[in-house]
């Protein structure tokens, strides 16, 4: 109990003194995960929508695979991205290993199936509702997808936020591909892991509280910007 209390006090101290290291790694955490969420959303939202609208032979198999990939172990993703980006790997020439870019790439791999799968489920219901109308109005597939993405934007926001939630708390993959290098690739989760290992519980807890606060703050900001839950139903 004392540890937790000490952690809270430590966290408050770090925040109110605007600790430079804390701000640096918090900003890096946000930058990595938000970039990954944006890229994953750009891929995952249209992909989920397309899977809902399009009928093709192995559709069920693809969707089942996508759902299974939601549970992709981050450590394994980290390992594979590591091998791809390492000097001897196929993308070694870019020298991306142990950079924030590598961390973003790993998180995109983890988040895209999640975002695609959740958006697919939301859009599938909307498509069932709109199907006859959009067919009757003679829309092209592209128009259908754009219409569904626009009218389903609130549900899709949830998909992206779920992706953010998974990304901001993720440690396995970014630890491997980022290397937790101070002032280069250290983020909140990897710092917590490190401080816990060192037995520095109050600092680890302080970082943990900052992480939770950050996740809650981002969700609240996005909700208020998009004005969801303001009007009764939609």
């Amino acid at each position, binding site marked *: 109990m004392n540890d937790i209390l000490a952690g809270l006090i430590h966290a408050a101290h770090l925040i109110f003194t605007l600790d430079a290291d804390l701000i640096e790694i918090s900003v890096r955490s946000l930058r990595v995960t938000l970039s990954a969420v944006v890229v994953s959303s750009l891929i995952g939202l249209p992909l989920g929508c397309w899977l809902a609208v399009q009928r093709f032979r192995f559709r069920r198999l693809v969707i089942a695979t996508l759902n299974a990939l939601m549970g992709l172990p981050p450590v394994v993703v980290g390992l594979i991205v590591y091998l791809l980006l390492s000097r001897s790997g196929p993308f070694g020439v870019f020298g991306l290993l142990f950079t924030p870019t590598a961390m973003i790439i790993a998180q995109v791999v983890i988040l895209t199936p999640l975002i695609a799968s959740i958006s697919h489920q939301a859009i599938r219901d909307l498509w069932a*509702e709109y199907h006859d*109308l959009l067919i*009757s*109005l*003679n829309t092209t597939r592209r128009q259908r997808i754009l219409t569904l993405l626009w*009218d389903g934007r609130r549900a899709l926001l949830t998909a992206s936020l779920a992706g953010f939630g998974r990304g901001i708390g993720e440690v396995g993959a970014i630890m491997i591909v980022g290397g937790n290098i101070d002032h280069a690739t250290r983020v909140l989760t990897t710092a917590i892991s490190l401080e816990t290992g060192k037995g520095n519980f109050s600092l680890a807890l302080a970082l943990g509280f900052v992480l939770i606060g950050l996740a809650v703050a981002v969700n609240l900001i996005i909700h208020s910007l998009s004005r969801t839950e303001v009007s009764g*139903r*939609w």
Partner: protein
Amino acid sequence: MVDAILPLSVENAQVRRRGKVLVGPITTTVSETGLSIVMGPNGAGKTTLLRLLHGMERIAPGGQLNWQVPEPKARGQQGFVFQAPIMMRRSALENVAYPLIIHGMARSVARDRAKAWLARVGLQGSAEKRATVLSGGERQKLALARALIRQPQILFLDEPCANLDGRATREFEALLLEIHQEGTRIVMSTHDIGQARRLAQDVWFIHHGQILEKTPAETFFEHPESMEARAFLQGDIIE
């Protein structure tokens, strides 16, 4: 001037699902003018017939729809109002403007036209309301405005008044008659005999997916040819 798509000739058209014949085979003609009412007991195939004509059902091999213009062109000249109106998650105005915008009209022009249509169906006060909060009657009028905004030559309606109260039904019927007088071909299904009497110029009586009768309204109501139609008009249950 847009090319006329009617008359439509239907040849041997049949809709099957899982080996079961839902409608057809039907061979008939849809004339250029008129207000036709499709009648028949529940499950007779009214909805499927309308969807078939509108090109929303896959026609079994051997059958076809022949419009006067190529199929893709004919599609843009048709409107369809569903039994349960489909409300897009947008404002009423955006719902009505949608078909115009999706087919390339400038947003501002489309919105002006949508406003005019909303006024015409009596929804001018609800333009900015979300379509999903409208009442049943308002929704159906909205769906009518949306189906008509591209000025189709033929309008299909699938039991549009099935869930409306008396007043909404009366207003809806008045609108339909107006539109018909302006030259839109109307094909509408209903199982409300009173409504059929009020509106029909000719009646298509459907049973087991077949058009049993296709006669002027007076003939149908005074001297129905088939036994099934006679029984239906008397209010008997027909199987």
